[in-house]
């Protein structure tokens, strides 16, 4: 297997899907000549030309709408929002149009569209460029929501998203683009709606997605040294959500910690916990815990930004709360 970055894996997925299907095209701000604000579309303009790699003006509502309109008549657009923060300008098109057109037309239309957007904090970009907005989209019937944490999943899930006949909101994390991992040479895809157990364990289940999976894995490693075996589940797709895998894990561990980079209030974790108190009530031995970002607009200052975000220590603390044990302090930072 080849080693490549998350960014390269996404690039390969788009390249291969565009080679496979002439109806697939990429549209967005600076996706062509600039090769993407995060260089995800490197080389695509050169290979596919300006008809299939379309640079747009800074007009998020029209970019999303144009993608949706083209999907209404049979194309399969990949719409890149430079960051999810800017997608707020396109919410009418995404929520009122893309998500509802199939239903409102009584099943006549399908909208095979992928809206890709990086999100997340950790680079001192301040309040307007550091948000995690997945729960806004989770709330809307008609959308699917995908959030890969590894290069392997980034490629496999993007391929499945492009081949899906529904509007898929595909979250990428700004701090994952440079992360390397193994990606097979041969064609493969990862099905939507299937979680992955990243690390097996018997004492507690830590569920996460996107960059927070790495925080969860780091915490699990530290916990191992203290004799606590944590199972780490990467959701990979947030909607539809693979509750079966979570319930299966809880049957074994009886304890749950959700780690998410969005806010607690009406966040992804709220939905996970609410679903599991119904589906897994009898297996729980402790109140479910949630680790999330502090409920403030993201500050610029490095120390404050770090304080706002979930850390391995905050995950460890939550795990110990589920075990009703005194927590222990990580010595490394």
């Amino acid at each position, binding site marked *: 297997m080849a080693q490549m970055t998350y960014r390269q894996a996404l690039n390969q997925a788009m390249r291969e899907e565009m080679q496979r299907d002439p109806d697939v*095209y990429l549209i967005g701000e600076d996706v062509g000549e600039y090769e993407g604000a995060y260089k995800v579309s490197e080389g695509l303009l050169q290979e596919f030309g300006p*008809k299939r790699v*379309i640079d*747009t*003006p800074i*007009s998020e*509502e*029209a970019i*999303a*709408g*144009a*993608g*949706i*309109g*083209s*999907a*209404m*008549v*049979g*194309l399969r*657009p990949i719409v890149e929002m430079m960051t999810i923060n800017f997608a707020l300008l396109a919410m*009418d*098109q995404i929520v*009122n*149009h893309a998500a509802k*057109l*199939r*239903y*409102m*037309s*009584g*099943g*006549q*239309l*399908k*909208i*095979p569209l992928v809206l890709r957007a990086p999100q997340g904090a950790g680079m001192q970009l301040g309040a307007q460029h550091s948000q995690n907005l997945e729960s806004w989209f989770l709330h809307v*019937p*008609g959308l*699917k929501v995908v959030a890969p944490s590894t290069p392997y999943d980034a490629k496999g899930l993007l391929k499945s998203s492009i081949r899906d*006949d*529904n509007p898929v909101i595909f979250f990428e994390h700004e701090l994952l683009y440079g992360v390397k991992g193994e990606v097979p040479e041969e064609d493969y895809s990862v099905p939507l709606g299937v979680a992955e157990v990243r690390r097996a364990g018997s004492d507690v289940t830590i569920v996460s997605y996107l960059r927070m999976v790495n925080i969860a894995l780091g915490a699990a490693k530290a916990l191992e040294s203290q004799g606590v075996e944590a199972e780490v589940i990467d959701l990979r797709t947030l909607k539809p959500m693979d509750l079966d895998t979570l319930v299966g894990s809880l049957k074994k561990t009886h304890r749950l910690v959700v780690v998410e980079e969005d806010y607690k209030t009406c966040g992804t974790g709220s939905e996970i916990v609410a679903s599991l108190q119904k589906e897994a009530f009898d297996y729980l031995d402790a109140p479910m815990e949630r680790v999330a970002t502090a409920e403030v607009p993201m500050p610029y200052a490095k120390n404050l930004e770090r304080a706002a975000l979930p850390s391995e220590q905050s995950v460890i603390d939550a795990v110990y709360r589920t075990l009703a044990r005194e927590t222990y302090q990580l010595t490394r930072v």
Partner: protein
Amino acid sequence: MDKQEKIEMYRQMVLIRKFEDKAGEMYMQGKIGGFLHLYIGQEAVAVGFISALRPDDYVIGAYREHGQALARGADPKRVMAELFGRSTGLSRGKGGSMHMFDLEHNFLGGHGIVGGGMPLAAGMGLAVNYRETDQVVTCFFGDGAVNEGAFHESLNLVSLWNLPVIYVCENNQYGMGTAVARASSLPEIFRRAQCYDLDTESVDGMDVLACRDAADRAIRRARKEKAPRFIEAVTYRYRGHSMADPGTYRTKEEIEEWRTKDPIERFRQSLEGTLTAEDAQRIEEEMNSVIAEAVEFADKSEELPAEALYEDVYA
């Protein structure tokens, strides 16, 4: 345009007028729920512009779109059944008055957010160029839409990228209860589009042949040269914004004044010699029975079973 085509246009205008009259009546009887935005007074715009299109062209409207769906060839039975919320409706009763879709006739909605259809139309134009075909996209919306960001973003895109999109703004003088002069810094709507370097014009939206001429010109340019166009059709709705409209923002005299320019009556008069009194009478009767059949069909149609609630969310 030959005689038959003109008579067909007249027939469609009468169909829309009678359909909408009946829909209003059915609403008052409680057969139709939700919002109901009637097209009465604006028939010349839909018929003038849509009659000039080919079947493979795309049409997209806003929420006052029954007339456009009918002009595009949607079955009046299925339009009425949609209003009744029945399974035989165009959108299986899941859309309602504001969300008519008829893919068989390339009628792509039915959109309830002001200006929301404009970026979608740009995307359809993009798809036409992508596939290197020569269809055109005709997009209808009201005067209220010109104050939305979507209007400006869309006009910039179609002009920048030479998309074969014809934007038809039906200026019926009011965005719900707010007169154009109270909402638009330029009351001549077509001037709002001029800074995007595309063809613009204003046309008498109470004159079906003037609309048809404007459509023919626009379509020729869009099909051959990929030139988009913005057309303001100056028109008037006789009825309220919706059935819930108390109408306090305009006078009876104003409505009467516009009624003297009635597009159907005017067209009938201009067709004297082509359309005889007997022809007109016959069309009148035919349309009465088409509407009666539509109501009967809608009324007798089944509702969707409750299990269908979760169908059509995902493909």
